[in-house]
């Protein structure tokens, strides 16, 4: 019987050489006359171990990583197909502490199943949420999501059930479910991992959202920087449709739900929900005034549920296991789990799904293993390019929407980027303004003009031109952007800028005058 070997087809794994490793395993197996079945799974999220090769053995799946093509012959010699000892051996993958200590709900199947295999999906608990939803009235589905406490995982943390309720209560011939997969924040990749590792989960979640709100058409707006996710997801939609999970008769229920995936085109602002809707309609991705809310007048002017990938992908388990089951995870008003993505200067970057309440310090040191460079971690940016920079003194903050808001920070989409002590925080503050200037949609003045002026003011501060006056000006400008911008881009860009200025003032200080004696 063929031995099953798993080699991830995931952007990070491929970027680390997984394709060449898969080919090397194939070639070695052929040369040695060994029957090997290679499954291209998604990633477990243990990114620093990629390419992480797993072998199905009598004692479960055992891992080897990071594997280079040159290691493959050696692995065969060591009998890795039977779980043999080797310098790269990691033992049973599920026992690796990084993974064993997590609470994987949304990512329970990632890296385990063949992402496009419908049988594998069903065998690992797939479609149970949809089956449960098909037995419920729309109000009951919506109520389950509301009771679960699920809040939008895209960053704004708005209760998902409330959005659904508004759409359910509106009358229209056509309603839509839109999935925001414009995962533009640096340091985030959990959406990508769902597409590449467990795409049917998102399809199931969107179909449930359709049943709950009366929407019969869904669109996924996926960023163009993720070509692999796009091709895998397109294939997943086709297979799901062919198997009757999408279309005019979802799972034989007589209910309709169609799904299409559209590509963005490299505009960060299209992660803002109304800009995304404009873009889907074929226009410039400019932010809309609110009201009207997208739930009442969204895509093509129709009532629209618009949620992030992780929000929608969390829904099937809530329906399958009940609202209370999900609600039992978490702290305060932050219920359930958050897939946290560790990136930047960390030894062990990867995906950590834990209930809310875990501290930044645990994530950076227990999981992340400290900096990759071996130098002290000096600053951490949480929540993408619009998130605050936090100093070491704030590393004990628990991951909780309200606890972060209390220190002038935000969790956003759960991305954590670490910097060591070589970072120049004035340069980071400048970049925040520069990024806003590049990505501003141009609709409102504080963002469009303020960001460019912000770059200039920071340049003057760094050049010691009227330092105190320019720092006062930067604060005043930030205040205008914070309170006067139409959306979160201009409105939150001051967070990284002011946090850098407040916590790392020394980087904005004049260069130390040389002492001449």
């Amino acid at each position: 019987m063929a031995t099953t070997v798993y080699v991830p087809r995931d952007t990070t794994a491929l970027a680390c050489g997984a394709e060449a490793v898969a080919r090397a395993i194939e070639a070695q197996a052929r040369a040695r006359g060994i029957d090997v079945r290679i499954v291209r799974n998604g990633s477990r999220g243990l990114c620093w171990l990629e390419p992480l090769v797993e072998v199905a053995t009598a004692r479960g799946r055992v891992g080897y990583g990071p594997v280079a093509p040159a290691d493959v012959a050696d692995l065969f010699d060591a009998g890795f197909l039977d779980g043999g000892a080797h310098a790269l051996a990691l033992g049973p993958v599920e026992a690796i502490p990084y993974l064993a200590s997590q609470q994987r709900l949304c990512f329970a199947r990632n890296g385990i199943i063949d992402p496009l295999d419908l049988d594998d999906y069903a065998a690992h608990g797939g479609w149970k949420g949809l089956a449960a939803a098909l037995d419920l009235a729309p109000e009951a589905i919506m109520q389950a999501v509301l009771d679960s406490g699920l809040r939008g995982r895209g960053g704004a943390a708005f209760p998902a059930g409330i959005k659904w309720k508004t759409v359910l209560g509106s009358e229209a011939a056509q309603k839509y479910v839109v999935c925001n997969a414009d995962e533009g924040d640096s340091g985030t990749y959990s959406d990508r991992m769902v597409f590449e590792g467990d795409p049917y989960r998102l399809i199931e979640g969107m179909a449930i959202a359709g049943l709950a709100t009366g929407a019969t058409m869904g669109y996924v707006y996926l960023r163009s920087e993720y070509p692999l996710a796009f091709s895998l997801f397109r294939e997943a939609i086709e297979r799901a449709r062919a198997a009757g999970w999408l279309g005019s008769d979802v799972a034989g229920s007589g209910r309709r739900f169609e799904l299409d995936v559209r590509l963005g085109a490299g505009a960060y602002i299209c992660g803002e929900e109304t800009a995304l809707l404009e873009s889907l309609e074929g226009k410039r991705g400019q932010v809309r005034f609110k009201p009207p809310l997208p739930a009442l007048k969204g895509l093509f002017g129709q009532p629209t549920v618009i949620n992030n990938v992780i929000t929608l992908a969390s829904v099937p388990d809530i329906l399958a296991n009940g609202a209370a089951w999900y609600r039992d995870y978490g702290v305060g008003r932050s219920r359930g789990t958050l897939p946290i993505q560790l990136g930047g200067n960390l030894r062990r970057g990867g995906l950590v799904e834990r209930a809310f309440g875990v501290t930044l310090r645990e994530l950076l040191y227990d999981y992340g293993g400290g900096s990759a460079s071996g130098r002290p971690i000096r600053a951490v940016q949480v929540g993408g390019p619009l998130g605050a920079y936090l100093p070491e003194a704030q590393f004990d903050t628990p991951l909780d929407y309200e606890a972060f808001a209390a220190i002038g920070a935000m969790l956003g989409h759960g991305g954590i980027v670490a910097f060591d002590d070589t970072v120049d925080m004035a340069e980071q503050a400048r970049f925040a303004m520069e990024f806003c200037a590049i990505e501003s949609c141009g609709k409102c003045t504080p963002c469009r003009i303020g960001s460019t002026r912000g770059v200039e003011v920071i340049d003057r501060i760094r050049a010691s031109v009227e330092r105190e006056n320019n720092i006062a000006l930067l604060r005043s400008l930030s205040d205008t952007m914070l309170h006067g911008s139409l959306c979160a881009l201009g409105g939150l860009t001051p967070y990284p800028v002011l946090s850098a200025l407040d916590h790392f003032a020394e980087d904005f200080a004049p260069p130390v005058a040389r002492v001449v004696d």
Partner: protein
Amino acid sequence: MIPASARIEPIDRPADLDEAQRAHVAGVLADLSGLPGALLPILHAIQDGLGFVPPASVPLIAQALNISRADVHGVITFYHHFRSTRPGRHVLRLCRAEACQAMGARVLEQRLRERLGIGFHETTADGAITLEPVYCLGNCACAPSLMLDDNVYARVGESELDLLVARCRED
């Protein structure tokens, strides 16, 4: 009456498309014009086929969708992904976002500018490489990252960068 010498010739004349380009654009428009919100899928399909969206195709797109040329032009120029000029044989997108900055992306950017003698949105004189910035490739745990054509590379060091550039120039 404006003398002929003072008239500004439009740059977006469909007649300037070569035959293959015209056929591609016509095929795309026939396939996709009926989609709701068709403009982005159309622009993607044109650029995927031709490497860029020729300004000369703008009137054809506008006509197919019954919108103005200004609308089409406005959308093309709004999105960083779409190009109006032919790129080099390879497109190298260097990530400039924070996770990559934390792992030395600024040094890589400097090295790349020196090696190639160009800045972002420019193409090397030998037509080998077009350099573009990108803000996150979703490979943040193994930074710094770049995308060469459709492939992402992780933990890119200066020597690997030189190797990739050399390979692009050879073919």
